[in-house]
């Protein structure tokens, strides 16, 4: 029930720093992120939390770093699943689900943390190329033959609904440099975060140019009594049904004995 205490610890690449600086060509920057654990468990009453991911820059140019021209974007992306988006329309006064559009491989969750507002970091085009940011995620329609207008409408409705439920979030200023090398990213985990394999990715930009990407995997599991029930209901559904029926009969019988008034 308590706040999530999953911290991803730093992998401080001291080794990289200790490399002989004698390399003639200026070493290119790269980025590393590390998670202290590859799996976290949340209980059923989970009400959302912040996940902190530490990371480091390797071979940063001290001048660029001082001028603050390094930018980092960290994304925690949930497993991809198909989604049906439905639209209600009024028929004879009654609101009915009429039109729908199915999208394949939509990330269930998508939390972004950045050093600065996205539009200040780089060009919209490079976001598109990297498929970075909730608004640049490509949602693959199951029926690409539908009119582009419809697809566009349902795609934006999908993003809007995901943002409204907190599954797609953006934390501007969520990445902070602790030193020239070390940074800390805080991404939001929504209360309804899906279980499964999540992918943490970090993107490094230097003066608006994309430099390098690094990723790590994180398994999110639910634990606790309620989750056991959920698992039994899905894995042993027939036995679960038998149990539900027996429980009802037992309650009915006991209730009669305990509360009998006749």
């Amino acid at each position, binding site marked *: 029930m308590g706040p999530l205490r999953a911290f991803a610890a730093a992998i401080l690449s001291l080794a990289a720093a200790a490399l002989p600086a004698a390399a003639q060509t200026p070493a290119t920057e790269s980025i590393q992120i590390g998670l202290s654990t590859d799996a976290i468990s949340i209980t*059923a*009453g989970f009400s959302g939390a912040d996940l902190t991911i530490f990371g480091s820059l390797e071979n940063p140019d001290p001048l660029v770093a001082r001028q603050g021209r390094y930018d980092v974007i960290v994304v925690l992306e949930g497993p991809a*699943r*198909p*989604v*049906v*988006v*439905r*639209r*209600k*329309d009024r028929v004879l*006064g*009654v*609101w*009915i*689900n009429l039109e*729908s559009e*199915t999208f394949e491989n939509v990330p269930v969750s998508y939390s972004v943390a950045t050093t600065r507002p996205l539009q200040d970091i780089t060009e919209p085009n490079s976001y598109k190329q990297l498929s970075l940011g909730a608004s640049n995620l490509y949602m693959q329609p199951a029926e690409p033959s539908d009119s582009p207008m419809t697809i566009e409408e*349902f795609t934006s*409705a*999908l993003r*809007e*609904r*995901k943002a*409204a439920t907190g599954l797609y979030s953006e934390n501007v200023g969520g990445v902070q440099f602790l030193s020239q090398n070390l940074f800390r990213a805080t991404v939001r985990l929504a209360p*309804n975060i899906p279980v499964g394999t999540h992918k943490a990715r970090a993107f490094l930009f230097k003066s608006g140019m994309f430099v390098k990407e690094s990723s790590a995997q994180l398994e999110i599991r639910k634990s606790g009594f*309620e*989750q056991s*029930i*959920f698992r039994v*209901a*899905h894995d042993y*559904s*027939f036995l*679960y*049904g*038998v*149990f*539900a*029926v027996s*429980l*009802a*009969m037992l*309650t*009915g*019988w*006991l*209730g*009669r004995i*305990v*509360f*009998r*008034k*006749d």
Partner: protein
Amino acid sequence: MGIYLPIAEISVNVFVLLAMGAAVGFLSGMFGVGGGFLITPLLIFYNIPPAIAVATGANQVIASSFSGALSHFKRGTLDFKLGGVLLAGGIVGSTAGIYVFALLRRLGQLDLFISLLYVALLGTVGGLMLVESVNALRASRSGAAPVLKKSGQHNWIHRLPFKMRFRASKLFVSVIPVLGLGAAIGFLSSIMGVGGGFIMVPALIYLLKVPTNVVIGTSLFQIIFTSAYTTLVHATTNQTVDVILAFLLMAGGVAGAQYGAKAGQRLRGEQLRALLALLVLAVAIRLAIDLFVTPPNRYSLAGLT
């Protein structure tokens, strides 16, 4: 005190659910109905997804009808043969209902269909009951003796073939309407999460002319097994039965039912029926309003099922 429902996947207040169960149990004890038709809409008003409200409602109905059927069994006011034939129909109807349920869910029309069925059925039953009980109240006030239909009269139903003798009910009737009635109730049970007593009881009395003393026991007997079957199939095909939710409702329900039954003995039949009719109509109107009010968001997301 909050509790997380594992299947509905939302947090709810334990006391709200216990109170809901107790209130419906009280009413069901008072009026001699199962209460499924009140539980499911109440759960929907409480933001439980309709698919889960229906399946869990069916589960809850087992508890209340089991406890009711036990006392009828002890008094011997239960026709097992009639109940068995009704049940055979019920299994068929319930299976069809589950299939339709899964289909509608896939099409995204389940919530709408459940609401429409409730509005239509509760509106009709509530309206008829209200008219009947108001007439009865008027008649008793003006002092006129209530006009009773002759129960021995035969109608078209009694001319159908495949007759069968039901000794406990002193009945010799075709199995077709009995099976049909069972199937209709089974269908409603799986789509609406109701026991169906509020349709079964009048149908047995007025259509099949079953003696009133065995009607409730027999109807409860059939409802136990139809809703048990419905619960089982919902659990296996749709995974929509939430035991935690069902248990809280049952616990409140069985307690409330015993007190309700006692309170019911102090009220007169017509008044009781008029009150129930008003309640049923209120639920129907509330559900109807939701159909017409502009939703806060026109778009909704769903996984592929």
